[in-house]
């Protein structure tokens, strides 16, 4: 924040950049002959937000829930598994390659399977969002838990610390910066997961809205839904950053 005050250009330039693109979009695209049923202008999209706000809100809410729950589930399981892997090398050696292999399956290919197993409710979308968050957090968390130095481990050994104490008081605090790095990424991917899940089997949510609006040539509605998806990801990201600032306050000194 202090940097922003000292360097007003840091705010003015990005704002000017965004504004210039919006202006080109608003005034140049229609002149260039791009019809509004393909790309509606920003003003038209704004009008959709005013006119169809009730519809947008009812579809936003399920996506918010799915993304949030998926975020918590995927990252939570990843953290627990990372701890288990670091506490027991044999479990890690046995199961990490399997997870590595599963991670190579594209989420888009996996999503129908998850829908097939869990049906059409909210649960499969939560699980798809969770799957997408899971792997980067697992890898980052393992790296973080192992980022302790030899001296730190020796210090805890000289103090006769138990394995659990070393985990709580050394490994987990060391891993937190790594965890937050992947939570920042997961804040965007969780929304992607929820939307992809809704594409494949849902009649509500922003993903379902995107599919229906596309087939019905309701491009204003389509762009409004896209904007909401992006806003949701940004909000989740800012939430993660705010929590990170509190938890890792020692890093600012």
């Amino acid at each position, binding site marked *: 924040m202090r940097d922003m005050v000292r360097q007003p250009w840091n705010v003015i330039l990005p704002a000017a950049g965004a504004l210039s693109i919006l202006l080109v979009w608003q005034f140049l695209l229609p002149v260039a002959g791009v019809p509004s049923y393909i790309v509606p202008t920003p003003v038209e999209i704004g009008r959709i937000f005013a006119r169809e706000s009730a519809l947008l809100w009812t579809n936003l809410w399920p996506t918010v829930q799915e993304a949030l729950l998926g975020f918590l589930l995927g990252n939570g399981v990843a953290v627990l598994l990372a701890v288990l892997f670091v506490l027991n090398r044999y479990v890690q050696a046995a199961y990490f390659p399997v997870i590595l292999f599963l991670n190579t399956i594209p989420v888009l290919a996996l999503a129908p399977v998850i829908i097939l197993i869990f049906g059409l409710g909210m649960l499969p979308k939560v699980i798809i969002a969770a799957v997408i968050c899971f792997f980067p957090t697992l890898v980052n968390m393992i790296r973080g838990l192992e980022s302790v130095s030899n001296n730190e481990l*020796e*210090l805890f050994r*000289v103090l*006769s610390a138990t394995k659990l104490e070393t985990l709580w*008081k*050394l490994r987990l605090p060391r891993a937190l910066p790594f965890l937050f790095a992947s939570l920042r990424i997961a804040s965007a991917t969780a929304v992607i997961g929820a939307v992809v899940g809704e594409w494949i089997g849902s009649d509500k949510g922003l993903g379902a809205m995107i599919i229906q609006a596309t087939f019905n040539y309701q491009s204003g509605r389509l762009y409004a839904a896209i904007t909401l998806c992006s806003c949701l990801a940004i909000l989740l990201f800012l939430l993660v950053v705010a929590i990170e600032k509190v938890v890792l306050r020692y890093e600012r*000194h």
Partner: protein
Amino acid sequence: MREDRHPVAIAAEALDVGYRARSGRAVAVLQGFDLTVPAGEFLTIIGPSGCGKSTFLRAVADLLPPLTGTLKVLGGAAADARLRREVAFVFQDSTLLPWRTVLANVELPHNVGRVAARNTGPTAAELLELMGLKGFEGRYPAQLSGGQRQRVAIARALVSEPRILLMDEPFGALDEITRDRLNDELLRIWRQTGCTILFVTHSIMEAAYLGQRVLVLAANPGRVHALHDLRPLKGADGAIGREDPRLVEVMGELRRDLERC
């Protein structure tokens, strides 16, 4: 200050310390090592790289089990001394936990290990005052200079009232003026607590200035090269001027030792 229940702090006999290679073959870094350190002594250890200086400290701290031979710490096994918190270690990098405040770092030994809390000794706050860090309790390690961080590390080592303080090049990364000042503070702490100090260093000056005895190790394999007794020129409190000609002479001897080993 704790009563010395045992007159010998460390006794090593025909000690081999090292590690086991994957093949199971024992690789001794330190070989046939004999040394007796009386309780309350300030012993400095100097030698070329790979002579096993740190290896010996790690054996005393029970971080590395002996391959063969016997090692007694305060009359018993190194592991028992560690479990009773009678041994503390100070590393070359301060090894402070960056997420803990200075005070919380000094209190770390009270927060881990299943050791009954001893409330007889100085508190963490008192130790910080002793180390000249009053007013820094709430700071984070990143806000301190290298010398201040090392002072915190020493306070943390002292908080469990160890009878043996193992220091592995603790001032190696500091500038000379800070190092001189910390050397004097360390001597003061040694006199106040009466604990046994094993101090590994690369500096001939530091080895001669601090030690009551100076152990010179040779490398490949690590073994005792010479043991200099400086008690006759230093008096009981270990004090000597930095430019005392006798100290300069000792430093010359140590330099010649190191060139030969």
